[in-house]
């Protein structure tokens, strides 16, 4: 295993290795700088580097960042869990029950939620929310984010369901399981990794989605992306770097979980979840 990977690496041309290094650098150098600066004493990012943890202290005491962060976490958690429930239900319907026309239309609608720019989607949602009387509110943000993350869960879970042998369900039914028991005991455990993957991705997309939050947030309510946007215009302290570092750390944890889910289930038919 290890050997063949090495051999693959050797087969890469210098040009490809250069491109790979460049792409990784563009992705990770800014992250590295932010992480570094979060431990630097100077509030203006100047050197010499002097190690400190005071920005982490400030973050948890008087930064004003914690409120928006918790709001974003709570909101995204609610959105991700809702997306997991509704998305799994929709995926089951799509894979098992939907007629050809209904399925195609539903897929197209979900795809449009991914492909239509969030700028336009956000504006359209604001118009609709105003028209139906919900207006700018936390509930509007919840609905807007749910609509944007639902496709990720549906597509990931439906792909896994589609790879499941239909006869598994028939086998469970013939052995005496009702449709619901068959789903809970046979299908659900087998698609669980994909549900978790979809939920984590839904959480991250929801947490990040500045545009939808920007259009739908009522005045005075600030999620983390909105707070950062405000701070960047008026200048900010490195406690924001400290927060960013924590978020990168949590994201790494998420990725590790996703990776592990994939590996754990590599032996199942249909392959890895991600």
């Amino acid at each position, binding site marked *: 295993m290890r050997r063949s990977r090495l051999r693959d690496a050797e087969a890469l041309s210098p040009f490809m290795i250069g491109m790979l290094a460049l792409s990784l650098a563009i992705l990770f150098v800014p992250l590295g700088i932010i992480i570094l600066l979060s431990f630097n004493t100077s509030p203006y990012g100047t050197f010499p580097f002097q190690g400190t943890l005071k920005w982490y202290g400030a973050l948890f005491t008087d930064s004003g960042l914690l409120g928006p962060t918790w709001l974003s976490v709570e909101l995204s958690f609610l959105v991700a869990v809702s997306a997991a429930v509704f998305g799994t239900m929709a995926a089951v319907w799509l894979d098992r029950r939907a007629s050809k026309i209904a399925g195609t239309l539903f897929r197209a609608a979900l795809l449009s939620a991914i492909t239509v720019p969030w700028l336009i989607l956000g504006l359209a949602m604001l118009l609709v929310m105003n028209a139906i009387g919900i207006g700018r509110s936390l509930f509007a943000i919840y609905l807007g984010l749910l609509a944007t993350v639902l496709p990720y869960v549906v597509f990931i879970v439906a792909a896994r369901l589609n790879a499941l042998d239909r*006869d598994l369900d028939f086998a469970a039914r013939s052995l005496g399981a009702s449709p619901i028991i068959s789903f809970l005991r046979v299908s659900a455990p087998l698609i669980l990794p994909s549900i978790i993957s979809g939920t984590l991705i839904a959480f991250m997309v929801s947490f990040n989605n500045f545009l939808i939050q920007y259009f739908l947030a009522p005045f005075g309510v600030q999620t983390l992306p909105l707070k950062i946007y405000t701070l960047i215009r008026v200048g900010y302290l490195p406690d924001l770097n400290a927060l960013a570092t924590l978020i990168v750390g949590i994201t790494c944890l998420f990725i590790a979980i996703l990776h592990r889910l994939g590996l754990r289930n590599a032996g199942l038919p249909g392959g890895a979840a991600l």
Partner: protein
Amino acid sequence: MTGREDGLTITAVGKDFGPVQVLKDVSLSVPRGEFHTLLGPSGSGKTTLLKIVAGFTPAARGSVTLAGRVITDMPPEHRNIGVVFQHYALFPHMTVAENIGFGLKMRGVAKAERASRVEEVLRLVRMADFGQRKPAALSGGQQQRVALARALVIKPQLLLLDEPLSALDRKVRQEVREELKRIQAETGVTTVMVTHDQEEALFLADRVLVLEGGALRQQGAPTDIYSHPADEFVAGFLGAINLLAVTAQGQSLRLGNQTFAPPAELAEALAKANPGAALQLAVRPEQILVQPGAALPGQLGGRLIATEFGGPVVTLRVEVEGQAVSVLSLSPDVLAAGPWEIGMPVCLVIRGGRLLP
């Protein structure tokens, strides 16, 4: 055997996919304890019929009765039918024991009894040491035994097998085939198997039902259906067969310019045929005897075109009055009767067969 009301009865069951009638009001009955196979090519409707019996797909017309209960509209979980699938359909996240115990769990059987019944059925399929393995760690043949155990442990009133051997290698297939026959005989469970493999059907079944185009073409005991096919389709589907164009001539048959004595079993059919009527004589290759030399009276004379050595058997291709005839004999018999040269005259004796209109 016991009465028909104890087994499976299918009455005028039909099914359409759009404008296509995939099942044309099929009726059949399987007495309790018997092993029937539904034999047919793909698209014959055999799998659809099996799914209707299992309850996986609804019938458009007709009724299905099992052990005296009408089950036509009953959901599969209430039917008490064991099903074995082509690709095993074992639950990959459960161990072998959990797979087999699933049906018992659904029936509320207590844990201790469950364990002992799982163990018992594992012994029946000769997999006693494999209870704690996951299905992925088993070979195809082993997985199919576990699938069979899972279907049998619920003591079903009917066992349905959907092409259970076709995903297996040739050698394993023969092993599992023999196991299947033993286990069915030991348990005495009423069994219906769907297959497209005529050898499997003939080997396993008490009775073979040949399906084609959504309709039953013929049913009967394997030997009966093999040697007395009702029509050209059944004749061809059950194995190689010669279809010779002949005309009836009193108690004899005429093939081109030659007159020959038909096998004794055709006397009755021949008596009913109109003199001079054009008929087809369906003869299996192994129902013909061949010798070198010119034909005696009552025999057919021909010319050897080719010999094909197939290990235990040899196929001789003979041309008779412009018609190709295949003859299958055991190798030692052919070698003893030789030498054979291409183009030499040979004589044929037809020992059996069937007249088709």
